[in-house]
């Protein structure tokens, strides 16, 4: 066992010294390699953090939303439907929700307007999301003008700006009182936008959903699970698209790896010839090449991940986030929270180190099979 370790050690020593002897080539390779790892890692880290953020925020959203559809389109739902729902076994609570979209032509943005479940937002005043505050340059105490469904101007005072910690979901939010909502949007008093249902046992959600659908055939039921799934899908999809685009870069990287490994300078060829002449075997030279690849790979991999980590979480992904978030006009400002785990790192490993190593197998072998007697001449 010990001779095996000594052999690895000795050859590894020589590998490192021989890499240092070819500083320029080694550094160029490490630079490109690190760049590739950095790009891919940034994409993965940011996408994963966004996913996590979204799912954390959605945790507080209702497990079940009941909406009414008419001719396939969304329609206000009668409050009377609550009676059919409240009576079902397993339902903890059910209530109506009022919310809608408002298009602000000044900045070309859509706001989400919602009436809160609890707490006052007295008539005449609103709380607005940080994104809106930025885009319209508003502070608490300023007034905002809205155009009601009747064409009248409704003036509302900004009472508070919503906390930045929840920006991902609240950036474009306006919290309004029920009276103001009705003034703005109109609509019958006995109808609301949708109903939210809370159940005692999450496992019973599908059953309860089914029963509601039976009793109220003109409704559509959306489960929080499905929203989470959709977010997962979108973030993964976007992350995946970016990676596919970067595949072009990855391919170029592999070609570079092959080329660098094959393109032995005369110095290098001579060195290997000498080694074989003085008693190194092909498998010893292969080991040398293996350690070379490992040294370069591990250095670049760790460096690339470190830089990506800093990029993703200290600068909150300044370079990539626009593509991944895709929210149109209003960009929430928030800090990404690291959420790394082993599979992410392993996926990165497979996407970077593995292609590199595979690209260098054949060139390494070609270098290693040099005939020792070639050096005698």
């Amino acid at each position, binding site marked *: 066992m*010990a*001779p*095996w*370790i*000594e*052999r690895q*050690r*000795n*050859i590894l020593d*020589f590998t490192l*010294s021989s890499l240092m*002897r070819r500083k320029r080539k080694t550094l160029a390779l490490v630079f490109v390699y690190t760049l590739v790892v950095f790009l891919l890692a940034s994409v993965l880290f940011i996408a994963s953090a966004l996913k996590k953020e979204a799912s954390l925020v959605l945790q507080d959203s209702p497990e079940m939303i009941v909406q009414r559809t008419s001719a396939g389109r969304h329609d206000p739902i009668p409050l009377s439907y609550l009676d059919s729902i409240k009576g079902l076994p397993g339902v903890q609570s059910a209530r109506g929700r009022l919310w809608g979209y408002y298009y602000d032509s000044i900045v070309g943005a859509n706001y989400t307007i919602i009436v809160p479940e609890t707490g006052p937002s007295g008539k005449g005043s609103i709380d607005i999301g940080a994104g809106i505050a930025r885009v319209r340059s508003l502070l608490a105490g300023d007034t905002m003008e809205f155009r009601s469904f009747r064409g009248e101007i409704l003036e509302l005072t900004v009472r508070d700006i919503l906390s930045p910690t929840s920006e991902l979901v609240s950036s474009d939010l306006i919290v309004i009182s029920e009276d103001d909502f009705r003034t703005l949007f109109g609509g019958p008093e006995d109808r609301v936008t949708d109903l939210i249902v809370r159940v005692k046992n999450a496992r019973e959600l599908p059953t309860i959903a089914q029963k509601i659908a039976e009793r109220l055939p003109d409704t559509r039921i959306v489960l929080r699970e499905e929203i989470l799934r959709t977010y997962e899908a979108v973030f993964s999809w976007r992350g995946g698209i970016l990676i596919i685009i970067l595949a072009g870069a990855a391919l170029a990287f592999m070609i570079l790896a092959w080329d660098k490994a094959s393109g032995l300078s005369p*110095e290098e060829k*001579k*060195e290997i010839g*000498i*080694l074989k*002449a*003085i*008693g*190194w*075997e*092909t*498998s*010893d030279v292969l080991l040398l090449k293996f350690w070379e690849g490992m040294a370069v790979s591990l250095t670049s991999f760790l460096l690339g991940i470190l830089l990506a980590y800093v990029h993703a979480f200290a600068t909150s992904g300044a370079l990539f986030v626009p593509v991944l978030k895709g929210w149109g006009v209003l960009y929430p400002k928030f800090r990404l929270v690291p959420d790394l785990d082993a599979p992410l790192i392993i996926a990165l490993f497979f996407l970077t180190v593995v292609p590199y190593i595979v690209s260098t197998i054949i060139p390494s072998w070609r270098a290693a099979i040099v*005939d*020792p*007697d070639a*050096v*005698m*001449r």
Partner: protein
Amino acid sequence: MIELFEARKVYHAGEPNEFVALQGITLKLNAREMTVIQGPSGSGKTTLLSLIGGMVRPTSGRIYLLGREITSLPERFLTEIRRRTFGFIFQHFNLVRGVSALENVMLPAFPTGESRAALKKRALSLLGLFDVASKAAARVEHLSGGEAQRVTIARALINNPDAVIADEPTAHLDTRLSCELMEMLGRLKAEGKAVLIASHDPLVAEAPAVDRIVQLRDGRIEGDG
């Protein structure tokens, strides 16, 4: 110690540039003997050395080393035997540039898995034997011709070989250094090693330590004495 039977070496067989380097060599080399292989360039000296030293496999014929046939041994076994049995001194020194003299001497033993500490000790003592221990840490580019030559000899001895093979060792040396070299090789012979030198330098052939001269021409042995 080393025996060749009808060894032939053909390069690029079957192609237009087919070249027969050696044509049926039968030769026997013994321990405690210094043999010089003489002949013009192109006579196959280097190929013969490679063949004897286990660096190349004959196209046909057999080779025996210490009674054991090594003709068709797979490379990994051949290399192991070669490491233990032969030390090589090359025409152009062939030291690894950018690496210290000491490290160069230790290199042939890296694959054996010997402990680095023991290896270092032995390498240093070898360098001392040839009076270049002071240059152990120096990079080979900074060594003079004579010093480099001694380092090469030290390297050839790191694995305690039974035989030393030298290919045109005096090609880049002046008279004084050449004589010194022959004297050092003579010492090795006295210790019981077999020494084989390929050279067309008359200084080598006329050295007092030489026991036998083999004349090679066009891949064939013309004289043996």
